[in-house]
Structures are given as C-alpha cells and as structure tokens.
C-alpha cells in the first residue's frame, strides 16, 4: 500500500505540543475553577496552568508561521466538491463506520483535512485558540492590563468568556481524542500524527 508523507515535522511538533498543553490546561483548570475540590494545591495548579498557557501561546505563533509562511493554510481552503464530501463524511460517521465501511477520505499532502474537519479546525484554531490565549493573557496580567480589561467589560466578563471557551475546549478535546481512535486500527491516526505518513 502506498503511503503519503502528509504531516511534516513542523506540523507534528506543534500538534503534540498543543495536544499536551491543552490537556494540561484543561486538567489544571479544574482545581483553579473549583479550588474546594482540593486535589491539587491551587498555587501549583495556577503555575502549571500559566506555564502551559504561555507554551500554547508560543506554539500558536509557530503554528501561524507554519500556516502562512510555509503554506499549510491551503489545507483549510475550501475546494469544489467539499459539499458532497461533507455529506459523505457525515454519512460515514453516522452509519458507515458502524458497518465497517472504508473511510471515504484519505489525507494527501496539501489536502489533509476532509470537508468536515476544515470548518471545525478553522473555528478551533482561528477563533477558539486565539480567544483563549487573549483572555488568558489578560487574566494573567490583570494588573497591567486593567484599562484594557475595563474597556472590554471588566475582568468578570473576560473570565466568563475564558471559562465558556474552556468548556468548549474540554468537549472538543474529548471529541478529538475519540475520533483519533476511529482509524483503520485503534492507534492508526495517532501513528499518523507521530510518523507523518498516512496510507493512500
């Protein structure tokens, strides 16, 4: 079987940094948001959260460089036939997958996202991630950014947005990891994201 080199090293590195960071952020958000649970010391949780938050912010810059300077953005661009493909993918996930049908989409260099992944990842990477980084930085530097925070409706508003987005991230993380198990084998997509090679 032919294999395509779909994910270059730069993509895989930022992906796994992102994956670890987002997981850690979600996990540490729990004791921060619910300190009375007391399963981790609040100070430790805050420090870890801040560290991975900054790492995600840094990683996001790498992502943008990769996206716009090395052409990864083309993976997100709509193409003709995306509508049909979206219906096919939806049918596959809602029925075909249960019947053991073959996945209709195979990633290729420059076309590694299917028609459902494109809008989903676009929302995550271009709305949710920057919004979370921005609100997180404001909360982190609340003292210095006070006037900006106040002009945006106050720290409570910023915090509420951050928390709402965090719930979406938690849901997304769950969903994303689960879909990662729906390849040819349980570990297939994980291997793809480690080696960069996907079957034709």
């Amino acid at each position, binding site marked *: 079987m032919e294999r395509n080199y779909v994910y270059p090293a730069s993509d895989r590195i930022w992906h796994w940094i992102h994956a670890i960071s987002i997981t850690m952020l979600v996990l540490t958000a729990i004791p*921060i*948001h*619910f*300190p*009375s649970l*007391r399963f981790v*010391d*609040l*100070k430790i949780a*805050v*420090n870890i959260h801040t560290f991975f938050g900054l790492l995600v912010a840094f990683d996001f810059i790498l992502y943008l460089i990769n996206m716009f300077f090395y052409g990864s953005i083309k993976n997100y661009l709509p193409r003709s036939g995306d509508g049909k493909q979206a219906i096919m993918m939806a049918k596959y*996930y809602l029925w075909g*997958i*249960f*019947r*053991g*049908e073959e996945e209709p989409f195979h990633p290729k260099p420059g076309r590694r996202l299917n028609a459902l992944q494109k809008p989903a990842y676009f929302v995550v990477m271009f709305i949710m991630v920057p919004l979370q980084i921005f609100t997180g930085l404001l*909360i*982190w530097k*609340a*003292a210095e950014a006070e006037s900006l925070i*106040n002009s945006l409706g*106050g*720290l*409570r*508003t*910023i*915090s*509420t947005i951050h*928390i*709402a987005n*965090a*719930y*979406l991230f*938690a*849901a997304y993380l*769950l*969903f994303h990891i*689960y879909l990662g198990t*729906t390849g040819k084998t349980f570990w297939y997509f994980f291997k793809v994201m480690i080696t960069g090679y996907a079957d034709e």
Partner: protein
Amino acid sequence: MRKFLPLFLIVFLGLWGVLSSGTNSGNRKLTPITLKDYFHAPNMHPVIKLLDEDGNPVIKTGKPVSTRKTCGQCHDYDFITSAYHFQQGANEWDVEWGNKNKEVGSISPGMFGRQYDYPYYHMTPPDWKKYGFLFEYGRPNWALQCGICHLGGGPTEFSFSGKRLDTIPEGQVKEMDPDFYYWDRKSNVFRKWDWKRSGVREANCLVCHTPNYSKGIQDQRTTGHGMFKVPHFSSSTSAGLITTGVVEKVTDDGRVIYNPRAFYPDGRVKPEYLRITGSFARKDACLQCHAAPVINGHVNPWYNYPVVKTVNRGVLRKGFVWSGKNISQIRDNIKDKEKLNFPWDVHAKAGLECLDCHVMGNTPQSSSFTEYVKRPNHNFGKGHPLTWRVRTDLDFTVKRCGACHDAEKEGHDWLPEKELHLKKVSCETCHMPRNHYWMLNSFNFAFPYTEPFSKGVKVERACGDAPQRFTILGVKGNPLTDHNAEITGFYPLYIPRNLEKNGEKKIVPYGVTFSLHWVDDATGNRVYFSQILNAFFVRKGDVWVPKKEVLKVFDANRDGKIDDEEALFDTQEKVALARKLLKAQGVKDPQLEIVAIPNTLVHNIAPKEQAIKSCDTCHSDNSRIFNQGKYSRVIFDRPVLFKRSYIYNVGYRGIEIARVKDGKTLWTNEYLLKDYHLVGALAPESEASRALKAVEVLGLVVLIFTLAGVLFHIMGRVIIPKK
C-alpha cells in the same frame, strides 16, 4: 568594736564594689536616650502654676483650672485647639453642607453636626426654621452627650458665630437659639442652658498629658452623674485631678477644693502630684476613647468602668483591642483562646505607640524646637475614612505599612500572582484575618426603645439618653451585662478603598455596623427622632409607652411590650402603620433605609504566621471576600422590608449593600465588588454571577452531550454488525 571591724570592712568593701560596678560605664554599653525617651521622662515638663480663667493661681482663688490660661502660658492654645481632634467639624460647619454633599440634614463633615447613627441625631443650626430643620440637638445636648469623648475646645467653648459661650450677653440670645437651647428627651421639653453657670469646656489637655488623671471623674462632672448631681463644664478638667491628689473635691456649683500640700507656696504644683508628660501624651491617652486596653488580664471595653459605664468607641465600631499580650493570656471567656498564642496586635507587642503612625502635624525636627513647643500641631496623621470627612485635606497623612515594610521584598514570594495581589489587596486583608473581640452589628433606630429608659445597658450614654435596640457581633449573649459571655470574634467585611494618596482601590477589611432608620424621601432628610417618638409612643407621666394601634400590630406575643424582634419591620402591615403614623407627624414620604457604617480594621494585626495563606479562603465558593458561607453577615435575623440600602459615604451612595434571602437580611458587597473577579470564587447573586452560572450549566451540558455522543458512537461500533 574590734571584733566587728572585719564584718564592717566586708560590708563596706562589698557596697563599694557594687556601687563602683554600677558607675563603671567603661564596662557597659550605654543605651542612647532617644528624643522620645527624653520627652517621656515624667518630669520633663516644667513645674507649673495652675491658673484659673482670670489668670490667677487656683490655689488662691479656688476656681476651676483654665487650660486656656494655664497651658496658654507657653503654648498657643487657639492653634492647638484648631486641630480636627478638638473641632470635629465645628470650624467647618455650613448649614448647606448636607445639601452640597448629598447628606441632607448634616451641617458639618465631622462628629459635630454630621448625621451619624450613634448617636442618631440632627444638629440644629442657627436660623433652623429658615432652612426647614426641626429643633432636635442644641449645642448643650452635644456638650452633655458627646462630651464624654470630645473633651472640650471648639464646639463646647464657642458658639456658631465664634463667640465664647459664657460671654454672650443674655439679651443677645434668641428664642430657641441652638447654642443655648436643648431638647430634654426624658421630659420632651426644650430648655435653655445657662453657660454662665456651667461654664464652657475648654480643651482638657490634662486628660492626655497627665498619667494619673481620671477621665472618668471628669466625665461624671461634665454630665452630672455619679458623685455629681448636676452637669458642670468648667470644673470638669479640675474634677479629673482628684486622682492626682491635686484636687480634693469639686462641689456641685463648680467650686474646687485644692489640696494645699500639692502646691509650693508660690502657687506652682509639686511634680510628685502633677506629673505632666512632655511632648508625647501618656501612653494610654488614645486608648481612653479609641481602643480597649488589657487591664489585669481582662480586656476593658468600657470608658473608665465602673466610673462611667459607657462602651469604648473603638470596641463599638470595630472590636479594637490594643495590647501586646497574647490573646491566650486573657482571662475573659474567649472561645478556643488556648489556641490563640499570639498577641492582639504585633505592633503593640513591638512597643509602637499611636503617634508612631498617626504622626503629629509637626515635630521638633520639622520645625524649630521653640516653634514646636509653642505650636505643637495636634492634627494627628489620619487615613482616608469612609465614614468621616472632617479635614479631608489631611487625609493620607497616617503612616501606612509601607513606611516600615517592603511587601515586595518581605516574604511574599510564595504568593501566586504576587504583583496582582499586592496591587489589589491591602496588607490588612491577610494580616488581620479575624478579630477576636466583639463589636456592634446593627441598630434599629426605626423603632427605638423608650420605656423604661434604663432597660438593658445603654450602648453608649454619650450617644443620646434613649437606649437603643442593637445586636452585637462576635459573642454569644450580651457582653455588656454578662462578663462571662463567650466571645467568638468575627470576620471582617471587605470593601474596596484607596488607602494611599493617588493609590488605587484595594480590598480592605472593615468592621461594619448597620443602621435601620426612616428617611423622608420627599426631602432626603432622615426622620427626626422626636417625630418617631411622637409617632409610635405617647407620654404617660415620665415614660413613653407604645400607642395601642402600634401594640396591636407589633406586639406579636401580646406581652404589652415591643421586643427587639417584634420591632423589626418584617411585614407590610407594620410598614404601612408606621408610614401612616409618621405622616401624621409631618413626614411626607417615610421610607426605610439600611445604612452600613464602615470602620477600617487596620489594627489588631496578627503575626505573620497567622496571616491568611490558604488560597481557598478567598478563591472558593466560600470566599471570605465575597462574604459567602461561614463569612456571611446577618444584619437582621428577619426579612426587613427596606426600600434601599447604602454605605456611609457619598462615593458609594446608590450602591445596594443589603439583601433579603432565606428569611434574613444579609450584607452583600456584590455591587461594591462588581468589578472584582476572584478565580474560583462565585460572586453572590448578580447579573455577572448569573451569567457565569449559566455558562457553567451550559458548559456542563455540552460536556455531558459530548461524552454521551462518544459513548453512543462506541456502542454503535461495537453492537452494530459489520458488513
């Protein structure tokens, strides 16, 4: 003789050795004498003659001591008494002050003339009818009832027009002139005061500058209690000298019998009798009014108890105990005191005194020594109080923590977001985690006690001679009547406030007392006490008794009395009746208000080991900053039907601070802290907190649906047969 010679030599040589070692400075480190020690030396002050108001030695005339003449020999009496401590707003009075500052009815920014809740009173200005005032408190009322704390000079010496009160000719006194007339609440009549008979109250310099002076006896002399039958002002300073041995007796008509043995033949007082301190006041000078000292192992919350049974204002307002002793050493019934092995205040333990932070307006260093002796500036360093606005030009002159400590460098590295915490949270918030004494919690001035006048213990006789309905915080039972009542202490409430000039607001702990009272919404003026009395009560002989219609609605248990709980306005029927009765007294639109009277808790600083270090003290659902859970404050144990609530400060008017929940009236600082977000803490009921709660619920729903979707999908992959 010979046989005693060796013994004699041994004793002689021994004594010589002891004495010579004591004077051998070469072997000992000499402790330098500080300026403060120098001034604290008891006999630093020159031996003086006590003079009467004519400038003659009192030992020759038998007249009361005049501090104006006596102290004025060397010190600028008028300059000293121009300080706010003496004036209390009297030199800033303005009949329009209330209108200008949205506090209708107040005529000054200070204790003299500003409406305050203890005492609940209206100071009557000159030409009061012209400005729509009723006559309530005249200057004699103030002198008699506020005079326990305010010891002369300023408002008890001079009239509104600046004339000395005992020099105003009878012919110049108008009918119902508030400088002369006063309201006798007991008899409900207005009487004229004879300043010539009573004399005026000059500033009582000796109460702070004479260590063994008795403030209690001068209080009795002022108000005509205890060993005196009638009030008398000019002899009150002399009366306090009884405990020094200088004075033997003061008669009811104001004559003073001095002890001739205390005087030199030339009229000067022997220093062993009158030990006037130098520049610095006696060490407990401020505590006489501002904080409870520890005496014989007990916290003493009274002014000169048992001479005067009035509670110290520092205790009333914030449970302020000033002592370096460990709380565990106190003999009072303090809950779990064996665990409280730390001092009431670390600064007291370290030997600091009030003037170290509340610095004088000048010092020998800041002006020439001669100038300093002549005109010592008694405008002591003050903060930026929410409650008081007297001499606001002197705000922020008190020394704050930063004068001695550097929070950036001293032991706060463990603190997450150190910079943010130090910027937003005052030092006291963590370093005064709990007050271990009691204070007043709430007053109900909307329905006062009247009969009998002596019922219960008056909270503060200085606060009017009508006993007040009040609740106490931090104690089980009534500590005023039961000295074994268990003292549980209390948690502060938190209000944002700037404590430094041009500084930004920080979270600051406060001792807050709440007041329920009536206001006339048509004018904005608080309903006069006399109107409330006449609305709800009728006079029978010497006493006021509730009207029948009042008893019918309020007296739930039909015992013929209105108990404290019955006196709370928790039903529409009570409010409607009260409004009807008050309208009959001329109040156009009577409405109930709850006002928070805040006093900063900047004392009672605990050792650093006791400071708050647990994050979830503030960052949790039981956040003490938002006063949730065990930190909640119950204002009244009933759901009071108030129209509005606010905090005692113009800047915070319009911000609600009370709410009714679960059948109780509770404090809320949600609107004060509306711009504050505490990670992990859910703010009380508000638009913002409701939005956050909605987000929480929606977020959980999204998570649950996602999880359920994944599980169903997994089940589908397992259960549905493959092709």
